[in-house]
């Protein structure tokens, strides 16, 4: 990368860390460190919620997915606005009213200490691992693109984030998120403008080409439980996933607990509801436009430069043969695309041009598939070539300076997600375990020191996990699968908390039953796509918890917000 681009990245890193340290001034207690004294404005919390959810995977993987698979992934978010509205009138006032630090703290007041500790423990295990995966995803890509060893790229992303999160707490995290979100959106719009300028056909022609290749197909109304991205899995499965994520995951709950009031917390969630689908559509559209761009500008056969080098060294003759075939297929596809763009829509000429283009596109895809298979055989690892499409485009096609801004935006996306995770991991460690079980009478100054140490500890854990996860691709899948076992189940416990006659131990057993049910469907008994796992987990907990509560009698319960509830 050009030195000017590196200077932009370094200036950004120094600024984020410096600003984080500046924000730490005046923080004297854990409420200030973890919740900013519940004093943040709605727009800052809203941008922080969006920045936390928009990770480097979105910037790299989702854009790449747009290029190879089109717009249909946006269906994943169809349930989000409804989830935000439901949370705004249920969980937000419930948790804000209870004046808790963590979502799990509320479960002890409503049910019992074991339910709180188990949910908090599951959160720590899952988020500790997934935080590593969040660092690993861009670290692997940067490693391949820049030719650095993975520990260095992990450190480049991880260490600045640990420093400003550890010192500045949630104040630093939230205000860094605000600036990072602005940087990310600016970079996304800039890349759209560059693409529209550089694609040699009109925007309408570009969309005709994308449409003919199936990249603009967004809606799939088939009701198929094994298909991941359909309208129904997005609306129903996505609704439960978003309810679980935004309603029970401490990394999100902590964002709106730091808002000034219930109404500002609600508004911050509605801000996310307002912008999420348009923003995600924009991210995918960038991928679609990059696909169209590479129809007119010959791309590498393999986008992953590390795999390309490995294949060239191990199987040079096979690679050259594939490249020759690719060159011919690509040239024919380019000619077909120009004819399609000129034909417009509706006429029989356009239909013929579209059919010819699709046929050429299939030939190019077939050669690419052969190349990916060869790379997989040579390197003995999954290629994940899709994750390298955007970095390759950014570094080879964007003008000087803009590549640096986009790389800084990818780092911003990673850092905003990691910072929120570290902050919430530290909160749960200190509030749900250290202060609850070990030092209930600890002083504010002592808790503040422990909180900063806990943030640093989880940061180091995340970096270590990232370093190993980067080389063990299947580990990330195991971690994700493990995480999905209890996401919906924890939501089920919170839903159960709103049932007046539900009781402590039935809730605990229900949680175990929900996790078991999700584990069963995860291993194919029966086979159900992962977006439905949260629905199954939540409903199982709710049914088992209600049934056992009804069977074991209606004992005394602590209703939400009960003043006699214990406070830790």
């Amino acid at each position, binding site marked *: 990368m050009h030195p000017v681009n590196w200077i932009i990245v370094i200036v950004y890193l120094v600024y984020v860390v410096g600003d984080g340290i500046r924000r730490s001034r005046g923080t004297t207690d854990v409420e200030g460190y973890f919740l900013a004294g519940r004093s943040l404005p709605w727009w800052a919390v809203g941008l922080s919620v969006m920045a936390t959810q928009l990770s480097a995977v979105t910037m790299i993987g989702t854009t790449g997915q747009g290029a190879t698979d089109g717009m249909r992934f*946006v269906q994943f978010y169809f349930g989000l606005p409804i989830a935000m509205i439901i949370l705004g009138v249920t969980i937000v006032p419930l948790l804000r009213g209870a004046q808790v630090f963590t979502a799990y703290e509320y479960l002890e007041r409503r049910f019992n200490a074991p339910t709180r500790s188990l949910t908090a423990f599951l959160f720590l295990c899952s988020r500790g691992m997934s935080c590593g995966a969040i660092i690993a995803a861009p670290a692997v890509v940067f490693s391949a693109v820049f030719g650095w060893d993975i520990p260095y790229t992990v450190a480049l992303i991880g260490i600045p984030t640990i420093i400003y999160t550890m010192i500045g707490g949630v104040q630093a995290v939230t205000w860094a998120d605000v600036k990072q979100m602005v940087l990310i959106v600016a970079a996304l719009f800039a890349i759209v403008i560059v693409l529209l300028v550089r694609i040699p056909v009109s925007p309408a022609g570009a969309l005709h080409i994308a449409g003919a290749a199936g990249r603009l197909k967004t809606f799939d109304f088939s009701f198929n439980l094994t298909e991941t991205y359909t309208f129904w899995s997005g609306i129903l499965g996505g609704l439960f996933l978003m309810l679980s994520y935004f309603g029970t995951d401490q990394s999100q709950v902590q964002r709106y607990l730091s808002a000034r*009031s*219930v109404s500002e917390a609600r508004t911050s969630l509605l801000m996310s509801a307002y912008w999420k689908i348009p923003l995600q559509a924009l991210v995918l559209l960038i991928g679609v436009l990059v696909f169209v761009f590479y129809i007119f500008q010959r791309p590498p056969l393999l986008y992953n430069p590390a795999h390309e080098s490995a294949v060239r060294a191990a199987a040079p003759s096979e690679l050259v043969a594939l490249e020759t075939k690719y060159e011919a297929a690509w040239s024919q596809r380019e000619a077909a695309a120009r004819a399609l763009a000129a034909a417009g829509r509706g006429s029989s000429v356009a239909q013929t041009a579209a059919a010819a283009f699709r046929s050429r596109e299939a030939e190019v895809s077939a050669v690419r598939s052969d190349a990916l298979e060869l790379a997989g055989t040579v390197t003995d690892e999954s290629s994940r070539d899709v994750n390298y499409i955007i970095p390759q485009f950014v570094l080879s096609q964007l003008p000087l300076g803009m590549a640096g801004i986009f790389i800084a935006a990818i780092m911003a996306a990673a850092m905003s997600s990691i910072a929120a995770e570290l902050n919430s991991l530290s909160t749960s460690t200190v509030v749900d375990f250290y202060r609850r079980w070990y030092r209930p009478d600890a002083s504010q100054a002592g808790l503040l020191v422990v909180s900063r140490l806990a943030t640093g500890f989880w940061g180091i854990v995340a970096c270590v996990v990232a370093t190993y996860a980067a080389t063990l691709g299947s580990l990330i899948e195991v971690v994700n699968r493990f995480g999905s076992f209890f996401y919906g189940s924890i939501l089920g416990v919170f839903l159960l908390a709103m049932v007046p006659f539900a009781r402590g131990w039935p809730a605990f057993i229900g949680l175990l039953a929900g996790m078991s049910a999700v584990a069963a469907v995860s291993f194919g008994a029966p086979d159900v796509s992962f977006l439905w796992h949260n629905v199954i987990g939540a409903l199982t907990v709710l049914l088992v918890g209600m049934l056992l509560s009804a069977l074991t009698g209606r004992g005394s319960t602590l209703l939400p917000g009960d003043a006699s509830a214990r406070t830790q």
Partner: protein
Amino acid sequence: MSHPGGAARSDDAGGHADTAPPGEFRRTLVRVMTMQVIALALLWLLQEWFSH
């Protein structure tokens, strides 16, 4: 506990109360849902207009 920043917390006082005008939340809700319908309609038009 102290509250650095000292910002207003009126609608948290006493637990679940929310002093925001009910009409304001409804209006925000209508705006959010209108935006979603428009976004989905645009995506639908994009899909249908440019499919061959």
